[in-house]
């Protein structure tokens, strides 16, 4: 009981400290805060569907970024042929990538569910390779990006002038988190997914068809990341290797948050985004921004393991 109270107090303290840091940053480096939230939003957004797959199906999907990349291509070509805006193309992308996800699951993942973790890792690595090389053969390595005038609209707040559109990633990450949480808590499929993620055998024993649940969640996640690819395209170029760095980032973010902890993926994404933006805001030290990601990751994982050992 005392431990619980101490934990609470610790959490409150943490919240206060982080709020304080945010206020200080707003005064000291407002751009780092704004841009950090925006880039962190993108990290979090992309990581969420991967966290869903990892949390429910238990598979580390190394092809995650490649599905996003293919989603971006999908939106690009849909735009070329029909004039659809990428943000609108997210809707057909959801459908198309749900199908692609289902096909991928049925053809590959399902057959490796009982295989050792390493085999699954290599399997999705192979899928990633096929995805990226397919894009390269189809559309070459030349980057593509539609012109969209709204993506560089800006806002002025006193002396600050900053991009408003990029908050779409921040907002979407939060919206997706809320939607996924609602889905997982309120819908029968969502609850089944949670159940399967927490205890597959227990899920079988309450009458859940776990294979169907895996299929549904995998398809849903791929559908989401395909649609996120369309949103990614609004501010980024697409090319065959555009997705792979985000696989790594997402994986790191999930490890940071702890598997199954979707809210922490989002807050962790914001935190890392802000930390990176802060490092970048110092002239001449931008080259160290990459270290932030890794260093925070190592520190958190080590810290957690030591706390567990001493507890």
């Amino acid at each position: 009981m005392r431990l619980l109270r101490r934990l609470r107090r610790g959490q409150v303290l943490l919240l206060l400290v982080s709020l304080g840091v945010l206020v200080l940053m707003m005064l000291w480096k407002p751009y780092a805060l704004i841009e950090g939230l925006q880039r962190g939003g993108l990290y979090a957004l992309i990581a969420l569907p991967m966290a869903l797959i990892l949390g429910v199906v238990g598979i580390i999907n190394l092809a995650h970024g490649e599905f996003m990349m293919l989603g971006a291509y999908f939106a690009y070509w849909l735009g070329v042929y029909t004039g659809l805006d990428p943000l609108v193309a997210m809707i057909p992308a959801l459908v198309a990538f749900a199908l692609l996800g289902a096909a991928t699951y049925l053809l590959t993942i399902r057959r490796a569910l009982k295989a050792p973790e390493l085999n699954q890792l290599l399997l999705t690595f192979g899928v990633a390779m096929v995805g990226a090389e397919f894009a390269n053969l189809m559309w070459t390595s030349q980057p593509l990006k539609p012109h969209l005038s709204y993506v560089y609209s800006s806002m002025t707040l006193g002396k600050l002038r900053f991009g408003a559109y990029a908050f779409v990633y921040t907002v979407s990450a939060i919206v997706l988190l809320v939607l996924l949480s609602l889905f997982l808590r309120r819908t029968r499929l969502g609850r089944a997914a949670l159940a399967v993620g927490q205890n597959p055998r227990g899920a079988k024993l309450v009458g859940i068809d776990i294979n169907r649940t895996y299929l549904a969640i995998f398809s849903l996640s791929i559908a989401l990341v395909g649609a996120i690819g369309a949103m990614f395209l609004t501010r980024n170029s697409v090319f065959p290797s555009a997705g792979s760095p985000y696989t790594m980032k997402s994986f790191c973010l999930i490890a940071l948050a702890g598997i199954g902890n979707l809210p922490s993926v989002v807050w962790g994404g914001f935190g890392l985004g802000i930390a990176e933006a802060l490092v970048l805001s110092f002239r001449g030290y931008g080259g160290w921004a990459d270290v932030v990601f890794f260093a925070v990751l190592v520190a958190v994982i080590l810290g957690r393991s030591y706390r567990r050992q001493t507890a």
Partner: protein
Amino acid sequence: MLAVSKLNHYYGKAHVLRDLSLDVGTESVGVFGPNGAGKTTLVHAIVGLVRPRTGDITFDGRSLLRMPTYEVIRSGVALVPQERELFPYMSVLANLESGAAYIPAARKGVPEALQASFEMFPILKTRTRQLAGTLSGGEQRMLAIARAMMSSPKLLILDEPSLGLQPSLVTELFHKVRDIGEKSAILMAEQNVRQSLKAVSRGYVIENGAIALQGPSDELLHNDHVRRAYLGL
């Protein structure tokens, strides 16, 4: 209702079920035996968690042998497994609701079933919002039984329900089991022979994966072998 015939199963080279046959009508039936005798393998085979090498299992005349677990459960069998297999990061209420949510026949009766659960285990009612993983062992056991009952099963299988429970709870538990036995058929695997024999009307003693003895409860209670080996008398 449930008929198990000539079941054989192996783990590697270990022969863990040997020509095992038993049947359960509408009454409560106990399966007794020491650790490792094959009780858990048997109940897992019934719900399809284990695929026996040979033999057959039928429930209401349908073979369960090739049915995936979720279909077995949906056809009216519920298992309270030894490890309880709750959803640790879900609330007590969500765990209970999960017991009925995936059984089409049980979905309508959720409020009544919840009511019944809370009547059977009042402690759960005070903990509906608590995460299942934070419950004590005894409370988890109750939750597991209540979750299984949410589906209003025709046959309830209990695997070592007294495991890890303090004595007072064990007594209480077997009372509940007897109550449940009035609504559903029960198949209970237990090591605690002395008390559990009183909760069932018939029993089988399994040793080394084979039926060593069977008969009505009071007959078993007075059997020399049972008294020596399981009651320490």
